[in-house]
């Protein structure tokens, strides 16, 4: 027990130093495995195991045992119980048991004005019944469904919180949580579940004024959503970025950036740094990223690590770039060489922690031996 506590404190120090702009004793590592991977890795059935959150602890333990990480490497983001109760149209279990989201339209074109006037009211009244079939009914039924769903949700989150605490204690992980809060860029919250990818792409051409106003109206909502009850300078609010790479620069500049920047600044004012998953390729927007508040954590999927280090390395905390697809198709040596290559570019001078370019979502997304080898290599060799 004491050994593990000491290990936790050591690892916490690595991340505190990273966040404080000091150079940690070695390159910190944050492995990222989805609960679906953990379930499959433990040899369990994905269509069954997600229903018993109590049973997830021994399942997650197997991943923790075999894959090195300084922070808790596995977490569950979406679980089926409350989605099923609500009759979710937007979060659906695929044939393999993996929850995905089909294109949905939670916000109709004619709902824009209501959203701009009061986003939360519009979400409760118009959006949720479109996304969740069991809420598309009379008010009595709706209140019963919401009661059940809310109970299921708080049960799941409570179980998970307890499990995470146990795992952190058992494996000596650092006491730093980059998923302490969660929200989206205002443009993304309007896009993903509300208008849908196709509709928003067309709205940008047909009704850009409404898109702009909607993003502005959603901004205080996102700041509030992303601020946890106990803000801490060493935790972060997770923001997965989505639509920007698919837009023209002019549209990004007018419709995506201003409200997103305000959101990150608003979170900072509330005591939270942002942890951005910079999905796809943001290299043409790199100068914008440089404008964000100092110490923003950015995990990159694609792009140019050298350029990112040069332009953002002194101000922000960088991670990512390591391709999960290489873990799938490469040899062990190629995988290790890639890690070395990235560390050589990104680590010097600090401001970097090792992480893959995306969460490893299923067992067949990556070769397990390669993954272990890379994490072990970085743990044993990556110093500043």
């Amino acid at each position: 027990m004491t050994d593990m506590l000491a290990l936790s404190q050591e690892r916490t120090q690595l991340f505190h130093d990273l966040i404080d702009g000091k150079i940690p004793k070695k390159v910190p590592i944050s492995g990222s495995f989805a609960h679906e991977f953990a379930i499959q890795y433990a040899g369990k059935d994905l269509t069954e195991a997600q229903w018993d959150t109590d049973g997830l602890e021994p399942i997650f333990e197997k991943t923790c045992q075999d894959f090195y990480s300084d922070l808790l490497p596995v977490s569950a983001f979406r679980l089926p119980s409350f989605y099923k109760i609500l009759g979710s149209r937007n979060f659906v279990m695929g044939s393999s048991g993996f929850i995905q989201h089909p294109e949905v339209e939670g916000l109709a074109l004619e709902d824009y004005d209501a959203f701009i006037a009061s986003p939360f009211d519009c979400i409760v009244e118009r959006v949720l019944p479109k996304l969740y079939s069991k809420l598309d009914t009379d008010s009595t039924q709706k209140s019963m469904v919401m009661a059940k769903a809310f109970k299921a949700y708080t049960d799941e989150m409570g179980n998970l919180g307890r499990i995470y605490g146990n795992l952190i204690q058992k494996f000596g992980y650092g006491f730093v949580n980059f998923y302490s809060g969660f929200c989206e860029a205002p443009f993304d919250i309007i896009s993903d579940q509300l208008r849908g990818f196709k509709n928003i792409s067309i709205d940008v051409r047909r009704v850009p004024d409404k898109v702009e106003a909607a993003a502005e109206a959603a901004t205080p909502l996102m700041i509030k959503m992303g601020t946890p009850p106990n803000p801490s300078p060493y935790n972060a609010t997770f923001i997965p970025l989505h639509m920007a790479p698919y837009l023209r620069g002019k549209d990004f500049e007018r419709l995506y950036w201003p409200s997103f920047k305000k959101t990150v600044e608003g979170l900072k004012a509330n005591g939270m740094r942002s942890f951005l998953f910079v999905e796809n390729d943001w290299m043409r927007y790199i100068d914008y990223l440089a404008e964000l508040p100092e110490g923003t954590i950015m995990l990159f999927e694609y792009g140019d690590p050298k350029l990112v280090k040069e332009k953002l390395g002194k101000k922000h905390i960088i991670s990512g770039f390591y391709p999960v697809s290489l873990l799938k198709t490469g040899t062990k040596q190629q995988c290790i060489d890639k890690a070395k290559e990235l560390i050589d570019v990104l680590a010097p001078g600090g401001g970097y922690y090792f992480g893959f370019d995306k969460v490893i979502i299923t067992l067949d997304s990556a070769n397990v031996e390669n993954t272990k080898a890379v994490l072990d290599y970085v743990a044993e060799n990556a110093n500043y």
Partner: protein
Amino acid sequence: MEDLKKMEGKIIDLVEQLDEDGVIRLANQALDAGIQPLRLLELVDEGMNRVGKLYESKEYFIADLIMAGLIFKDILKLEKMTAQFERSYSERIGTILIGTVKGDIHDIGKEIFRSMAEANGFQVIDIGVDVPKELFVSKVLENKPDILGLSGVLTNTIEAMRGVVEAITVAGLRDTVRIIAGGNHLTEDVCRFIGADSYANDASSGVKRCRGWICSAGGKGVRADD
């Protein structure tokens, strides 16, 4: 006649500029002025090609391709067009069968690819999302496409795509069809791993590849050793 010629040029420009209202308005005018539906389609196709080039030169992006696909569909829905659009099979340059592989339900890339491929003269058979390999095999057997397109965005689709190629091979169909894999995360190594003939990170380059195969095969059907 001259007016019609001017209109033709303008239609192409408006498609290129993604001016949806402008295109519909002018297309209707042109149809009233006597333009042949197939000719209008050719103009829209040309506009779509220009959009594709702007995408390749990184002036246009995915959202623009979606808009272009919508304009294409708008034109096909015009009254004077619906009767005419049934291009007979022999006029199509080739057939592509596409689907998103098992484990993935993303379909936007596949839809953009479909719009662009149709605009380029292909017949496209879309068998949907989360498609198991057995269904790919039976649909290839049934439809005998020139090209099989496998779509997938999630990283677990690499294994699923490999499974499809294997199943096609085991069914003795590998030599009858070219296989292209589509997805942002694909690389040459991944393509080799999957066993596909080619891969594309976006719809535009995918359609280009398919055109290349058809043209090198003399316009009718494609053999795997081309």
